[in-house]
């Protein structure tokens, strides 16, 4: 038992928690990005995808809880480590130069915090519809395939990104995210012990590659909206069956 | 003073076995009642501390370093000899013994040297078991190289860092015991005085280098493993803190000091570059395996090395010693370098240097192979000198490196003071007048791992444990002496720094008692040393206080002891009116400049007893008898 406690207290263990939860989050980010890219396939596809997710029911909640746990543990371990690191060098150097470390690796706490704020903002924006409620309730969508009226995710996203401030905030956030990911992924492999001179050739490139992928993949959507590649679909004036608490604003023309 | 070497009787091959069989033992349950104080944590000290603690004794180990791993053993580069005969090239215990006696120019005790050769094989096994990463062949077996004047490959090595790896091995064994609580480690504590009670070594006085606290420690036996005194020359390859204090303190308390004039000058050091220089850097002797030593044929030839054609170069070692060539023993190679420089054929600043040229080896083996063998040494050379040894030859010059002399010990490694045991370079025992390459590591570990654990038991079996504590008046007196000395240093308030005195003494010793000595140079030194000493005690300036980390104060104590010891060294060199090994009296040389021994008069170890007056020590002689190796003129031609 005491050895288990020691294990849990150990810095190496904390790092392992951070690495595993980080990799889970990266897995989620890949899936999320692939889903989002359906924006380019038009409203029918992405709205169907969103519906599909909703229909997962308990499974969706399982994933959501999993992600909440992963985020929670990731944040918990970062607090643990950051506190320890702060204590490990109470007096700073007058002059300190970095030798081999990347900018990203030295600013993980900053980029991590930025991402945390962004995630909250992002959830308030597109999941809870508290920011920009108008665009959130921009009207329902009648599925061409089934005729079902669903939440018009497509138009919600387009309307959101048509606001340049919002787009810029997403672009900024993605820069932080890619910076974080570029160090984090490689680092996670090393923390989990995946590194030797051969493996390093791959692991050292995974981080930057993923960071680039996220940057291009995720940013293609706001940029696509801004340059007009992704255009708003005609309003169908339907109310999504999924928005139960319609605020009944002038813009929201409920049937 | 009685010099009983206690060499066991019988054939040389059986002496050690016989001795071990006859040695008294301490009952296992009684061992923990004994406390052993060990000063020094290098190869000899750390290996002894670890092994004695494993046996069950209580051990207190002292070092002035911040960690036992910093001891200067760590800097040994080349390797460690052992008569394993893994190479099937004709090596044997007898041959290692023979080579060592001959290499020491017949001034070492046969019995001790044979034992050294015997236990050498156990050392390798022990170190391998500890995880020392010796170099290996592709088949996974240990590899060897030939080293410094040996005609067989018996040197084990770990890159160019053999001393480091062996020390880290001993340090790990010591750390294990510290972790287990059987060794109490006292770091940043300098030994200031030895305490005798009724003529037996029963304790030491130390100064905590951080707080300045002076404390005394009592034990049932004391071990000194405090290294050599090459820093008497100021510029040497020894670490900055290496000193003679423990040896000198013991000597002043009555321990015989043997052959202090036997100092080794290493042939391959980087030449001095300027006045400010604090120490010389050694390049491993292994470089001589592939490098060729040469100087211009003509004196005062100022051309750059590559402008001197082949037929105007003098590969003097190959010329004078055809069978050993560039691998001739250290004393011979060093003196030959001095000789050519004295002839005005030296190279580099001040004409004090000779070339060590790798171009032939690079042509033969390729730069890659040379880089594999010596890469780190080449880098080191380039860092220090700013020159690239791949394209231009290195410049080397001899430098003080090792001291064969030291406290006299018997076969049990006990000094003339009962209870005071001396290990490693600090004793005089195994190398005679010259030490062969890769034998220092061997001796340090042999003493610590395989000799002292047996012989100290024999001594302790006759001692009642814990009888004396540091409440004894002798301890109070010793502490008061040390305190008095410290306050004396601080109260002089003169004009000169400790370093300036050390430099002055070193220069004098190097010129007058260095690679070549003569009656007149020694007499001159004997006149100058007391003068420098007198000025030191009247004009040194030690700033700061006693109760803090005070590097000037530490240095003052060491320099003060060097200033007394140097006198004895010159007296010994003057008394030994012959040339042998590292001791070269210019009056005694053959026609072609080789050392000329005088076995009639000097086939003995000179053991000096302190008389109360440093100028008039009493001389005792331990006659050396050679029953197994025929006394012969050493020839490396």
């Amino acid at each position, binding site marked *: 038992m005491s050895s288990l406690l020691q294990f849990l207290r150990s810095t190496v263990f904390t790092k392992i928690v951070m690495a595993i939860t980080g990799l889970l989050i990266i897995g989620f980010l890949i899936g999320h990005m692939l889903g989002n890219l359906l924006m380019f396939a038009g409203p029918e596809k992405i709205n169907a995808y969103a519906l599909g997710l909703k229909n997962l029911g308990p499974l969706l909640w399982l994933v959501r809880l999993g992600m909440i746990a992963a985020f929670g543990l990731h944040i918990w371990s970062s607090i643990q480590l950051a506190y320890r690191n702060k204590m490990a060098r109470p007096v700073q150097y007058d002059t300190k130069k970095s030798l081999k470390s990347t900018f990203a690796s030295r600013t993980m706490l900053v980029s991590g915090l930025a991402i945390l704020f962004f995630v909250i903002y992002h959830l308030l924006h597109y999941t809870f519809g508290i920011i920009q409620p108008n665009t959130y309730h921009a009207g329902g969508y009648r599925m061409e395939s089934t005729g079902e009226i669903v939440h018009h995710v497509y138009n919600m996203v387009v309307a959101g990104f048509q606001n340049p401030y919002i787009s810029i905030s997403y672009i900024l956030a993605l820069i932080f995210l890619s910076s974080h990911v570029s160090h984090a992924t490689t680092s996670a492999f090393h923390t989990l012990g995946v590194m030797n001179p051969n493996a390093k050739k791959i692991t050292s490139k995974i981080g930057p590659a993923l960071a680039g992928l996220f940057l291009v993949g995720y940013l293609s959507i706001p940029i696509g909206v801004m340059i007009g590649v992704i255009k708003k679909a005609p309003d169908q004036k339907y109310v999504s069956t999924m928005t139960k608490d319609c605020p009944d604003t002038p813009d929201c023309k409920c049937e | 003073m009685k010099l009983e070497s206690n060499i066991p009787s019988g054939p040389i091959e059986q002496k050690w076995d016989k001795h071990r069989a006859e040695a008294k033992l301490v009952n296992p349950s009684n061992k923990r009642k004994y406390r052993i104080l060990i000063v020094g944590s290098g190869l000899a000290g750390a290996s002894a501390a670890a092994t004695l603690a494993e046996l069950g004794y209580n051990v207190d180990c002292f070092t002035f370093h911040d960690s036992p791993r910093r001891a200067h053993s760590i800097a040994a580069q080349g390797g460690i000899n052992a008569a394993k005969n893994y190479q099937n090239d004709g090596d044997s215990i007898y041959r290692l013994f023979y080579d060592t006696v001959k290499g020491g120019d017949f001034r070492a005790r046969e019995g001790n040297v044979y034992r050294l050769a015997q236990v050498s094989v156990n050392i390798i096994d022990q170190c391998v*078991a500890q995880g020392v990463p010796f170099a290996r062949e592709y088949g996974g077996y240990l590899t060897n190289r030939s080293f410094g004047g040996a005609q067989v490959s018996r040197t084990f090595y770990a890159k160019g860092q053999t001393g*480091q790896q062996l020390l880290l091995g001993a340090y790990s*064994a010591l750390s294990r015991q510290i972790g287990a609580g059987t060794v109490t480690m006292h770091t940043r504590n300098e030994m200031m005085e030895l305490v005798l009670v009724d003529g037996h070594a029963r304790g030491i006085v130390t100064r905590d280098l951080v707080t300045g606290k002076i404390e005394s420690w009592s034990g049932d036996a004391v071990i000194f493993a405090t290294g050599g005194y090459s820093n008497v020359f100021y510029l040497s390859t020894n670490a900055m803190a290496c000193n003679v204090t423990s040896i000198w303190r013991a000597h002043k308390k009555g321990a015989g000091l043997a052959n202090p004039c036997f100092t080794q000058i290493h042939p391959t050091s980087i030449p001095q570059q300027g006045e*400010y220089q604090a120490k010389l850097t050694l390049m491993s002797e292994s470089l001589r395996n592939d490098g060729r030593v040469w100087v211009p044929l003509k004196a005062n030839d100022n051309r750059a090395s590559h402008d001197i054609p082949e037929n105007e170069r003098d590969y003097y070692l190959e010329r004078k010693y055809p069978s050993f060539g560039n691998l001739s023993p250290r004393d011979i190679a060093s003196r030959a370098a001095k000789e050519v420089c004295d002839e005005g054929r030296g190279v580099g600043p001040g004409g004090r240097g000779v070339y060590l040229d790798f171009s032939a080896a690079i042509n033969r083996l390729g730069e890659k192979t040379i880089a594999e063998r010596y890469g780190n040494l080449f880098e080191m050379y380039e860092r220090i000198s700013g020159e690239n040894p791949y394209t231009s030859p290195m410049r080397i010059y001899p430098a003080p490196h090792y001291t064969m002399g030291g406290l006299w010990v018997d076969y049990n490694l006990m000094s003339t003071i009962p209870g005071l045991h001396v290990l490693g370079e600090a004793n005089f025992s195994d190398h005679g007048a010259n030490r062969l390459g890769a034998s220092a590591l061997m001796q340090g570990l042999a003493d610590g791992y395989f000799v002292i654990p047996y012989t100290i038991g024999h001594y302790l079996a006759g001692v009642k444990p814990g009888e004396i504590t540091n409440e004894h008046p002798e301890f109070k007196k010793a502490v008061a002496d040390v305190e008095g000395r410290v306050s004396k240093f601080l109260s002089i308030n003169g004009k000169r720094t400790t370093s300036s005195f050390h430099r002055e003494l070193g220069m004098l010793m190097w010129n007058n008692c260095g690679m070549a000595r003569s009656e007149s140079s020694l007499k001159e030194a004997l006149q100058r040393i007391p003068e420098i000493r007198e000025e030191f005690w009247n004009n040194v300036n030690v700033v700061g206080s006693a109760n803090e980390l005070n590097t000037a104060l530490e240095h003052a104590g060491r320099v003060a002891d060097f200033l007394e010891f140097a006198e004895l060294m010159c007296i010994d060199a003057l008394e030994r009116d012959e040339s042998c090994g590292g001791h070269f009296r210019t009056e005694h040389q053959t026609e072609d400049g080789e050392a000329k021994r005088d076995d009639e008069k000097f086939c003995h170890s000179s053991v000096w007893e302190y008389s109360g007056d440093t100028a008039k020590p009493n001389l005792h002689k331990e006659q050396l008898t050679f029953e197994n190796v025929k006394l012969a003129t050493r020839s490396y031609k």
Partner: protein
Amino acid sequence: MKLSLKIWRQKNKNSEGIFKNYVLSDVSPDMSFLEMLDTLNEQLLSKNEDPVAFDHDCREGICGSCSMMINGKPHGPESKTTTCQLHMRKFKDGDEVIVEPWRASAFPVIRDLVVDRSAFDRIIQAGGFVSVNTGNAQDGNTLPIPKPDADAAMDAAACIGCGACVAACKNASAMLFTAAKVSHLGYLPQGQPERQRRVLKMVEQMDNEGFGNCTNTNDCEAACPKGISVHNIARLNRDFLKAKLFG
């Protein structure tokens, strides 16, 4: 050359430290950095001022005593070089040189540039050894060790324990030091019986000493005068995980 030096001066562990400025002229490019400090100290002593205390001993780059942050880099500007082996030809006339001690709570400053690195010793004492008593060993050639393993062990064992890795790490982590020892013994068959116990004990001690964590920035590897690779850290992590999951 003429240099302006800005050096950390601190009387003892408990006192406040401060930077002091010194101007040193006639610095020869062939001097080592420590010889430059020796020269400064000689001048200070002649003015009855306390010399700058710094740890040093072998001056050959192997004992690991010297330890100072020079212009923001451990052991100064030259890579794979200890302070004692750094020569003044790496500086220019008129340069400002800032000299500070290692900074880490596990390495308290004792005086000026001298820090207490005994934490490293305690990490080794916790498990950085093979438990073999003197006299137990079998013949050295009974156990063939593949050359690549022996070489890798040697590379890890080359650590001199100077603490530059801790000094360079933004988190003051001692992972490279600890990992080098874990790896050295982990590569060798002699180290196997205690492999799991060793890594757990050493990591535990490392944590107890108050070092920070490894965030894989690799600054330690760049600062290491012996070029010890960060691969050793991954090996430690692997050994640690294995020891916990299957130990």
